[in-house]
């Protein structure tokens, strides 16, 4: 049977306790709010995209459960240095991983450390916790000025 430890792996516990890239960027040119009304998770992301279209820096602030904080922390690491033009693909890759059938193993070569979050598939009510940060960056990248939701 799926064990809790598969969801709350050491990586997740660690990123929750000491989130990376936490706080406001000194310089940024995109930002957005994310909110999950069901859980009350609140997130704010900052991005600095340079002239070459590369996400040079990304950070987040906010509060939420361990899954949402760890996911945001891992996401910032995964996005740093990524061309904005590749964001959509990464976003879709993540969405696919957390919503795919349980027997489909995450492609660790592509997902890297993010693969630890594939465990949320076992916990349908928690998938939104993991994906909120991605939706928030999506609205930051698109400069939509709308509070991101996971719907």
């Amino acid at each position, binding site marked *: *049977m799926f064990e*809790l430890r598969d969801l709350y792996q050491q990586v997740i516990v660690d990123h929750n306790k000491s989130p990376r890239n936490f706080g406001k960027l000194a310089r940024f040119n995109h930002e957005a709010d994310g909110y999950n009304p069901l*859980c*009350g998770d609140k997130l704010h992301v900052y991005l600095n995209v340079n002239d070459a279209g590369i996400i040079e820096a990304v950070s987040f602030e906010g509060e939420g459960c361990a899954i949402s904080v760890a996911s945001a922390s891992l996401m910032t690491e995964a996005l740093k240095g990524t061309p904005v033009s590749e964001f959509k693909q990464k976003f879709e890759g993540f969405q696919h991983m957390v919503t795919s059938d349980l027997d489909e193993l995450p492609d660790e070569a592509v997902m890297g450390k993010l693969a630890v979050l594939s465990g949320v598939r076992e916990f349908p*009510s*928690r998938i939104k916790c993991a994906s909120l940060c991605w939706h928030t960056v999506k609205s930051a990248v698109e400069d939509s000025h709308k509070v991101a939701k996971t719907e």
Partner: protein
Amino acid sequence: MMFDIEKIRGDFPILDQKIYGKPLAYLDNAATTQKPQSVIDAISHYYQADNANVHRGVHALSERATAAYEGARKQIARFFNTRSEREVIFTRGTTESINLIASSWGHANIKAGDEILITHMEHHSNIVPWQLLCERVGATLKVVPMNEHGELIMESFDALLCERTRLVGAVHMSNALGTINPIASIIAKAHAAGAKVLIDGAQAAAHLAVDVQALDVDFYVTSAHKMYGPTGIGILIGKESILDGMPPYQGGGDMIRMVTFEKSEYNDLPYKFEAGTPHIAGAIGFGKAIEYIQGVGFEAIEAREKELLAYANAKAEAFDGLRRIGTAAHKACVLSFVLQGVHPHDLGTIVDREGVAIRAGHHCAMPVMQFFRVPATARASFSMYNTEDEVDALFAALKKAQEIFA
């Protein structure tokens, strides 16, 4: 009366099951209670043997359905000691009952400059309808504050109550905190100031005896599903003298006596407020649920639930890193808390894997979360069928959560 917990648990078939291989400990009764076999049987009997529309057929089934539906209304009327059955209006539940009052009574009686006084611990369903009304008519919503224990500050209530106050809306028992409010005194004071009173009994009605005449309450509302009955049905109890003067809420079948294209004549109470085919099976199940509560008796229920809450409180106080949210002197059945280092949602998931069902979130009472400066709480809420073993299972699961996050 001896409280036979084994017999009571045996009446609720759902309780006897395993979740992820662990015995289910259902501690989410404030969200909805489980249903005894008698309620389940009454509902299926209705569909198997008596199903027909009410108040309109002359055939045998329709007469049986009508008798059962109206029989439930009688039981409910007696249970809450209303003056007559005309004071019992079936609705979809607490939320619809409050919206009915806001829409019908509110529109007819609340004007620009008037005030509606509610409390800081209301469920969203007793906040939003009043905000909508205030916006529409230009009235003002005022809020009675609470203290750090989650008790209303009655001096502030006295100060806020004034000649502009048209309505006082207060929750009888808070779903987020468990606080039982002093509604008798709230009602007496509000009446002295010339205001009407609406009491939200969604949580209270399964745990405390309510006598609407002794309380002299103008409106009392509740939902069957929190009282061992089905979802989708609840009641609005109102004084006949007030209901009589209120315009209809929805128009349609059943609520009229005469319709022409020029004008319609409305039906008598309670039908004036029951447009359309009602939730007949729901009403019948509600009646059975009330019979069940009466069979156990409030004296026994209250004594048992007090004992269980005391047991849980003692464990909570001894638990490292646990902060209780809601420590009112007068409270029931709710243990709301936060655990240092573990977010309530992670707690909810972790204890679920141990078979323990609790609620994590804002409990539709966001202002309460804001007051205690927490985004959410974990909440265990008890019912008469819960046991000390289940409380132990909860605390063992909390320990496990702490270990995962250690």
